[in-house]
């Protein structure tokens, strides 16, 4: 029961808060402790306990006042340096807030990015239903079974798996690419306002409308059926019922088109052209990166000894540095980066995708296979696949009505070697 000056001091140190009330209660308690006789007679036990609980509640709620308004900056911070003719522009009259100082545009408020950009006022998660995503490894992590079947490969996934010298098979996902391509559909319901009047209903069917309906019947000769699909009411996508048709049995080997050496405009990134990571391009690539792996270190090697990167062994406080070579542990790694030709698309548009893969480990890797499981609304354009390295290309229908694209790089990848594969898709 030593609630008194010390607690009040703590509250003052945190500032803001219900300081006045807390200090008054603390002073009252302290005053009571200085006169124990009066304290025991005047205050019953339940009253003292209630008062202590109240003080604890008040003191534990000490925090800085929270306001929803943005932080206010001094006018100088918004106006920037005062202009020379600002006094002449507003002589003896207070300038309104819209015209601050002599600058035409005020300095922007400080912006601290926290996560991916999203419209203000929108609670997370981001409305992803307006975007098509291709790339990455969502859901269950993809893995390669001993019989070379890939499990955990959902639609939208783009992965590459390879074999290491010690016999392991590793899987590396690419970065996801987001494309704004909303598509709409509609649900119709027709209600007759004269259902009980059968005579009127029959009279409403007039002969002049018959030719129109005949035309519509011909139009409706397509494969669409405008009847509500009951199975779509389930939580699972309706395409899952198509999975009965073969599992990997239908797979066609297609000839790869010749690779075009010229890079596309959207591939004008150093990491795509040369396989070297440039820090200035991180902002462009990081927008769609979810599986960034080795982007944190500079790839350029400063000192090479025996074809291996050397590290500083002696500190740089001296006039010279001593470099040594440490035999690194085997670390096979494959980096795969995906870019798209556009960020927005409408149904019917064709999007070009480029995958850049590099062996960024310290040992050769073999059986490099790149697999792209296209999402429902992306349709592979036939004969659009290209590869800069010798590879076998296969397509296979997936469970969501699209295709699985598969490049099998024939030759092993040496350390530092990389390649580019391209393909095109049409937005459904």
């Amino acid at each position, binding site marked *: 029961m030593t609630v008194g000056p010390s607690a009040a001091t703590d509250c003052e140190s945190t500032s803001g808060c219900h300081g006045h009330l807390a200090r008054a209660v603390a002073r009252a308690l302290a005053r009571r402790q200085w006169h124990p006789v009066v304290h025991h007679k005047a205050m019953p036990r339940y009253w003292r306990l209630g008062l202590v609980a109240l003080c604890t509640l008040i003191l534990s709620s000490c925090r800085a006042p929270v306001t929803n308004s943005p932080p206010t900056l001094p006018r100088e911070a918004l106006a920037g340096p005062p202009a020379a003719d600002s006094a002449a522009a507003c002589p003896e009259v207070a300038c309104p807030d819209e015209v601050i100082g002599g600058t035409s545009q005020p300095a922007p408020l400080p912006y601290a990015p926290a996560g991916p950009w999203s*419209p*203000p*006022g*929108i609670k997370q998660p981001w*409305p*992803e*239903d*307006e*975007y098509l*995503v291709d790339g990455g490894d969502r859901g269950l992590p993809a893995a390669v079974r001993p019989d070379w079947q890939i499990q955990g490969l959902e*639609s939208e996934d783009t992965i590459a798996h390879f074999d290491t010298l010690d016999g392991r098979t590793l899987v590396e996902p690419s970065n996801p690419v987001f494309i*704004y391509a*909303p*598509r*709409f*559909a*509609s*649900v*119709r*319901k*027709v*209600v*007759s*306002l*004269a259902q009980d009047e059968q005579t*009127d209903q029959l009279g409403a*069917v007039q002969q*002049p*409308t018959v*030719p*129109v309906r005949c035309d519509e019947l011909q139009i409706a000769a*397509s*494969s*669409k*059926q*405008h*009847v*509500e699909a*009951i199975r*779509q*009411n389930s939580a699972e*996508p*309706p*395409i899952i019922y198509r999975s009965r048709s073969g599992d990997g049995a239908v797979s066609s080997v297609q000839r790869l088109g*010749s690779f*075009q050496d010229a890079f596309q405009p959207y591939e004008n990134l150093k990491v795509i052209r040369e396989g070297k990571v440039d820090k200035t391009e991180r902002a462009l690539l990081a927008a769609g990166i979810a599986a960034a792996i080795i982007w944190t270190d500079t790839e350029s090697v400063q000192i090479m000894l025996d074809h291996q990167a050397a590290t500083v062994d002696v500190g740089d406080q001296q006039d010279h540095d001593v470099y040594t070579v440490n035999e690194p542990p085997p670390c096979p790694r494959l980096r795969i980066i995906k870019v798209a030709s556009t*960020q*927005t698309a*409408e*149904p*019917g548009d064709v999007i070009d995708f480029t995958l850049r893969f590099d062996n960024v480990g310290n040992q050769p890797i073999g059986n490099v296979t790149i697999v792209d499981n296209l*999402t*429902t*609304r992306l*349709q592979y354009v036939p*004969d659009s696949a290209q590869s800069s390295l010798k590879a076998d290309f296969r397509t296979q229908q997936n469970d*969501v*009505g*699209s295709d699985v694209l598969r490049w099998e790089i024939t030759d092993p990848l040496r350390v530092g070697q990389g390649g580019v594969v391209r393909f095109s898709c049409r937005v*459904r």
Partner: protein
Amino acid sequence: MVILLLTCVGRLAARQDEVHYLHQGAMPPGAIGSVQLQRGGPLPGFFQPVEIKAPPGAAISLAVGNTFEQPTPAPLRVGMLVGRVYRVRVTQIPLAEGIEVFPTIEIIDRLYAPKNQKRRFAIPIELTEEDLHMAAQGKFVTRVIYLEDPFRALPVSESQGRQNWFDVGRGRDPLAVADQLGRPVAILRMGGRLPRDNGPPDAAFLFGSPPFARYPASVRRLPAPPTSKPAAARKK
């Protein structure tokens, strides 16, 4: 205890679902949109681009100042406020000249298009010839336009630029069905009330003639002309 109860109640009220399961598509125009505005978010005051499509030859006119403006050939691209109801007059319907249909369009959600792409990605409101004829015959047609969930989208292309649609079964609510398949963004109703015969239509019929923003009609981009160089390079 009272504070704890108040906190729990407040959080429960804030965690209202995004779907419209408690509503019905048969609710009067404006009811669903007004509830949508009460849910918060950047919806009030936002002009959502909408593209109204109609059969070839049909004309569309919107309400301005408690009267309909001059008919404009379809398609028409305008910006409509979320939560308001717009009365549209459709005239010159093919094979039904002289008959006018007065559909209503209610925008109940918006899109979040990238910067400078807002007008390009408009919500399509399709007034099909079949719907117009059924409305002219006295039937009430309700279409709930929804944004497809990419994971549940049908793996088919839109035929001739027309959106995919289907009829719901008997006793089913189109709004609830659309909620299960995606995110409803607009409700089109036609076949309801008609304006009075003499004089201009009243304000209640036009739902107050809410403001709209007129955008230039979209220009359909033609496919790129075939180039001989890439084809020749592939055949090498």
